[in-house]
């Protein structure tokens, strides 16, 4: 079955998504910068969308010493290196149903780069449509990018804020696998344990594994109606109240953050990027199984 157009899926903010067709038609557009962000380190060098640059989540987006994100200077240096200006129309795509693309998109928002979109379906859809790939790494002219200071408050929730939110009966969504949510597993199926001492979930958190928002055959996002059925009808997540999403280290939950904030238009959604690797190690915080 062909994928429905983004416009026909009735998202609240369809402007944050673009299609493989649009990207294919804009490969030569100098105001567009296509960025690939993957989990699999071999994918970009093995072939990528012509003209695309790579942004690696571990090297480019994370502080290399502390557990935190890059600062303003780091973001400016990254954007300069990949030839982006504040006016550049950034399109991000990647493997794993755009999991890492949404993560990069989320980090870009910390610095106010709002001219960013995610390519619906990501790398899987592009390849399934037999669109061109190249191994040529583009040579880009460095730009002079000036970013604002990183603003965490609208996008990130920290542990004390999560605890206060929990005590106030606030809405939480746990996007990990059901086994992680129940505490039967301390890590994702097929992934190594990254060191949480306790299993379970934050009390009251709703369990909605992140990939439920995706059509698995081509990695595209489900329609707004289908997403509302999951998050509103089934899980009763009230759009008029704040939602905090979390997972293991805040990457899968950036995908759900993207879905709730932009595709469904929840006005106040934050990502608890400390997530289970922090909460499952904290002394004395409440945990439910």
């Amino acid at each position, binding site marked *: 079955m062909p994928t429905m157009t983004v416009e026909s899926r009735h998202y609240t903010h369809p402007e944050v998504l673009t299609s493989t067709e649009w990207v294919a038609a804009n490969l030569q557009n100098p105001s567009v910068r296509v960025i690939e962000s993957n*989990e*699999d*380190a*071999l994918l970009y*060098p093995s072939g990528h969308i012509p003209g695309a640059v790579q942004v690696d989540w571990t090297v480019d987006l994370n502080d290399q010493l502390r557990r935190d994100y890059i600062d303003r200077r780091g973001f400016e240096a990254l954007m300069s290196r990949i030839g982006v200006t504040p006016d550049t129309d950034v399109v991000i795509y990647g493997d794993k149903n755009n999991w890492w693309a949404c993560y990069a998109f989320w980090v870009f928002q910390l610095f106010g780069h709002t001219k960013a979109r995610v390519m619906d379906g990501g790398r899987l859809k592009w390849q399934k449509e037999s669109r061109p790939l190249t191994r040529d790494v583009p040579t880009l002219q460095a730009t002079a990018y000036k970013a604002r200071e990183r603003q965490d408050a609208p996008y990130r929730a920290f542990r004390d804020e999560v605890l206060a939110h929990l005590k106030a009966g606030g809405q939480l969504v746990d996007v990990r696998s059901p086994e992680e949510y129940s505490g039967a597993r301390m890590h994702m199926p*097929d992934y190594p344990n990254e060191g949480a001492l306790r299993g379970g979930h934050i009390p009251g958190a709703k369990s909605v594994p992140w990939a439920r928002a995706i059509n698995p055959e081509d990695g595209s996002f489900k329609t707004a109606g289908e997403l509302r059925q999951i998050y509103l009808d089934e899980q009763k997540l009230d759009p008029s109240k704040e939602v905090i999403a979390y997972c293991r280290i805040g990457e899968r939950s950036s995908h759900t953050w993207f879905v709730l904030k932009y595709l469904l238009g929840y006005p106040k959604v934050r990502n608890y990027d400390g997530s289970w690797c922090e909460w499952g190690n904290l002394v004395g915080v409440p945990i439910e199984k």
Partner: protein
Amino acid sequence: MTVPKPLAEILETLELLPDPSDRAQLLIDFADQFREVPATVATRPFSVDHQIPQCESDAYAWAILQADGTLTLHFAVESPVGISAKALATILDQGLSGQRPEVIAQVSPDIVFRIFRQNISMGKGIGLMGMVQAVRALAKRAM
């Protein structure tokens, strides 16, 4: 760890490349050499009996016993983004085909970490180790 000479040579070559980008390039070269299971051995839809558990690239493995008592390995990787699985399949084919089942059955899944090192992604390790385990199981069945 028991490793047959052809596989040991591949491992040594990879270990000579401390730069992750150089190793990535060599792994991509292996992926480029990937040859899918011939139609004389299997055709689509592939039997679930040959599907490799835990491999997100939807990979399959076969081991054909030759007249001289050695095995020839074959693989299929159905995911278009299964580059790591294709690289490992080629390495296992080049490094283990032509060996006797009892030799192949001794190869440790830990070779995955010697092959990929920093180039392994978080979710790939266990799936790729599953490829080695599947080959070991096929070898044991042929013994």
